[in-house]
């Protein structure tokens, strides 16, 4: 499984950022922006919302820097903060907006860009759209574990730590989420066939 762990900041940069140095904080944003955006995207499956959520994560980070304990590693602390901000954002947004259509969203990863032309590419885009629809129907708590598992390849233990849940609950949510996704994909696939 592909892993994408949260990067670690340079200790000097982190130290400057903790002292309120804006340029140092800017470097932290640069370092983490891809990771945060991917995490947010895997939660909301919408690039515009993921961008808003990413901004929210960094603003929350800035406001919370004084609560960070420098004797502990920054990465896991920030990962937990980012995950919680995304999860709360997702819960707030849930019900307020359904996933936009791929055309309207204007954010499709064009299959042609990766594999030029052909029915295979169109089928891939269609499958991606169905997956997004299915994921958007999952409860936020299920989405969070799915996101962490497949964005970062996180272990059950890592997810449990980040979400402050028992490992058994993580496994259970993951199992149910995957089961629901598989059923949704099979149903929609059959409906479209």
């Amino acid at each position, binding site marked *: 499984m592909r892993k994408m762990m949260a990067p670690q900041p340079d200790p000097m940069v982190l130290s400057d950022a903790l002292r309120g140095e804006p340029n140092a904080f800017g470097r932290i944003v640069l370092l983490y922006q891809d990771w945060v955006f*991917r995490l947010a995207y895997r939660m909301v499956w919408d690039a515009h919302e993921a961008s808003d959520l990413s901004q929210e994560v960094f603003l929350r980070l800035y406001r*919370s820097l004084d609560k960070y304990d420098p004797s502990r590693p920054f990465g896991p602390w920030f990962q937990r903060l980012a995950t919680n901000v995304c999860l709360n954002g997702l819960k707030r947004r849930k019900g307020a907006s359904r996933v936009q259509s791929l055309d309207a969203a204007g954010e499709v990863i064009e299959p042609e860009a990766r594999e030029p032309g052909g029915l295979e590419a169109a089928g891939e885009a269609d499958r991606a759209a169905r997956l997004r629809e299915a994921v958007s129907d999952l409860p936020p708590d299920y989405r969070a574990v799915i996101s962490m598992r497949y964005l970062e390849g996180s272990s059950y233990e890592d997810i449990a730590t980040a979400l402050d849940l028992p490992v058994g609950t993580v496994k259970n949510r993951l199992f149910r989420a995957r089961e629901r996704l598989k059923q949704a994909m099979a149903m929609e696939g059959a409906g479209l066939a």
Partner: protein
Amino acid sequence: METMEDRLEHPDDDRLQAWAEGDLAAEDAERVSRHADGCPSCQKSAEAYRALFADLAGPVPSTPPELHAGVMEILRREAAPLAARPLPALGAFWRAAGVAAAASAALVALVALDLPGEAWAAFPGLFAGADQAVPWLASLLERAGDGASSASETIGAGLAASAGIGQGWTEKARALAWFLPFLAAAAGLLNLAGILRLRRSAAGREKEEIR
């Protein structure tokens, strides 16, 4: 060694998912694999899971190039050090609390002034003997009672006349007005309770996020 049980018994969906993801212990994985070799239904299900996992781990759009600039712009606009700021709802809380308290006090004062002089006697525990003990309070009560009685009679009569109802309704309207301060106080309390709850949930969310 392959057993009859391995061949006949379908693995439960939990194990099948774990097997499809390569997350089963070697011995258990071998057992599920042996079963799946001869079971098209489990093979199909495992294939569907593998396709799903691949899709879930699929590509994500690129990070918007304006994300970094957007964050820095927001931080620049917020001149005060954000970490030192109080909870955002604090100002709104005190404003709303002040409005609620002022509205309640104004209603209480209006209705109290509108009470007939004899109504004050309905509070024996509170006012009995007060006129002897505190002469200025007795005088104040007397004046307030007289003034309010005449004012309330005038206003009540005017209201009753304009509404086309009899004089008897004036008294009923005045009796109803007794409830106004209590209603106002209850509304004020509910308002405060609601705001406090909002603040607590906002603070809780913030604590949870920075845990």
